């Protein structure tokens, strides 16, 4: 085990896989000479050379398509977007090519591709740079979506993503890049898709979260414990496929659930989770399932307004109390 920062863990995962398999390469803006816009690929150009760490012009749609085409014929590219917001420019490639080539060809082809970038809010970066894009992509069959919250999971999931034969979208978080955690050194340790992690056990309420919001949920859980409510916090890690079994098992124990995440309230991953709970654990619910989300407005620049718009621990606490009939 090593104590690594989240960004270092991603780097370690990618590097191990690149050493293991010549077909893996990294492509994106500023990944090489600039050392990575968020220093995730720092040092990789020097280690692997320009063929394996490829700087691109600003051509998200173009280089996403190139990665898809290359994957179709057997390479295993890792595309880095500077942020997930910019993937919108490449949405057609992701939606209509990456997710569809297998089906359109009747199963003759597959796309072993990884797309990765930081996701969600940053600090005062405005409405165009603050999206939580997983809600658009989990909707699409043919894609897989994962979102690690810890350095250990960051490494384990990126390795699984690279080894996966289907397109995997990997959602990081700028605010998590510097957090440290214990990370396995063994290059054969991977984290499987579709398996959640219980970040905190409890029997009073189930809080479901992923990525940065896992940490916010844990913060809320500490405060709730002081008031006698023991929250179970589930770190999903994998959004599609979704570990519904873990969710349902927890809700059957606690009888009440709150889903806390970044993203606008209309639809999205949180609404999908609520559907699964009401469908699969209907008889175990003592209260409706509540969601704590980003406010339904474009992200403002002003710092205080931004804090109002993004979901907070206080919002989680409030929701937990509502479902516990303690407000």
């Amino acid at each position: 085990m090593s104590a690594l920062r989240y960004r270092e863990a991603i780097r370690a995962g990618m590097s191990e896989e690149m050493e293991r398999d010549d077909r893996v390469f990294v492509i994106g803006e500023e990944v090489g000479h600039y050392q990575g816009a968020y220093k995730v690929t720092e040092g990789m150009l020097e280690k692997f050379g320009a063929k394996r760490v490829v700087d691109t012009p600003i051509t998200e749609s173009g280089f996403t398509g190139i990665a898809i085409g290359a994957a179709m014929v057997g390479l295993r590219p890792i595309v880095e977007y500077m942020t997930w917001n910019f993937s919108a420019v490449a949405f057609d490639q992701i939606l209509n090519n990456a997710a569809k080539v297998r089906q359109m060809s009747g199963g003759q082809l597959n796309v072993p591709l990884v797309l990765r970038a930081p996701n969600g809010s940053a600090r005062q970066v405005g409405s165009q740079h603050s999206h939580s894009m997983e809600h658009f992509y989990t909707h699409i069959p043919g894609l897989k979506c994962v979102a690690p919250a810890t350095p250990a999971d960051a490494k384990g999931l990126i390795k699984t993503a690279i080894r996966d034969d289907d397109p995997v979208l990997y959602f990081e978080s700028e605010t998590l890049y510097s957090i440290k955690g214990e990370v396995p050194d063994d290059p054969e340790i991977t984290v499987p898709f579709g398996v959640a992690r219980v970040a905190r056990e409890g029997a009073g309420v189930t809080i479901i979260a992923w990525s940065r919001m896992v940490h916010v949920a844990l913060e809320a859980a500490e405060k709730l414990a002081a008031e006698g409510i023991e929250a179970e916090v589930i770190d999903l890690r994998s959004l599609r496929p979704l570990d519904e079994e873990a969710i349902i098992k927890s809700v059957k124990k606690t009888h009440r659930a709150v889903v806390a995440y970044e993203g606008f309230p209309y639809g999205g991953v949180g609404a999908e989770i609520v559907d699964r709970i009401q469908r699969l654990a209907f008889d175990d619910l003592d209260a409706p399932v509540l969601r704590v989300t980003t406010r339904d407005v474009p992200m403002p620049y002003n710092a205080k307004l931004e804090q109002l718009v993004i979901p907070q621990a206080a919002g989680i606490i409030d929701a937990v109390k509502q479902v516990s009939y303690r407000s």
Partner: protein
Amino acid sequence: MTAETTDTDETKLSLYRKCFQIRRFEEEAARAYAQGKIGGFLHLYIGQEAIAVGAQEALQKEDYAITTYRDHGLALARGMTARAAMAELFGKVTGCSKGLGGSMHFFDVEHNMLGGYGIIGGHLPLAAGTAYASKYREEKRVTIAFFGEGSCSIGDFHEAMSLSALWKLPIVFVCENNEYSMGTPMVRTMSVEDVSQKAIGYGMDRDRFFCESPMQVRDRLKVAIDRARETSAPTLVEIRTYRFRGHSMSDPGKYRSSDELEERKRKDPVTKLRIDLESAGKLSELERLEKEVEEEIQDAIKFADESPEPGPELLEATTYKGAFAR
């Protein structure tokens, strides 16, 4: 400078047969569509056959080819059987894409025909990607990508061109300029009529000609294909051509005059080749091979009619290579 003048009659007959196969296939497909056996969109290649056939002659088997939704011609030229093609149009499980793709999504990995795509220009970065992979693996493999002049305005065309030139990818971009984007003539979609000039902005080699025969296409494309193979440099080739039917089956083609259509039909490369061969005394060979082709097409229709449909178990199975992710 072409090798055309030194082609043997046998070569020309062979090329004619391939063109004729595509033409008859398309005509029968149109009939089947009118009979309700084919649904959705059907974009016919009639009038443009010489391009796919000529290109195939210039390509090697392991080269990658990719095109738009007007893909039947290229697929058949690359070696897909008429059976697999017609069955796909009829939506049967014996189709090249198991009935899941339809007319716009013909794929045949064995013959390196990598699709059939519905989004204008969207396949061009993919083509740059397959070329990228060839270069990455240091293969002598070329990618050829076909598209219409209507694709030359959209972003993905430019990104693919830009990156191919920047990274010197082994790709040939072939613009099949049939003068109409659906109902819009090219003077209303492009500020510069000569599509090949777009290569200049990217520092890319180019070529441009009016399609007259499959031999001509073969010879001209070979230059670009060899360039890609030997020097890993891309080329943009514009081939002026014409389609004799509407954009698709739902297009009545009111945007061009019947005079224009008749005039272009007189310039049809396939018809001209036949006349050529007939003048060379090959009528009986022509009739024989035409008869064979007719039989082949009728057999394909019968095969398609009798083939079963795909079952729902194929749906999830073809969404992911791994286990279905929900």
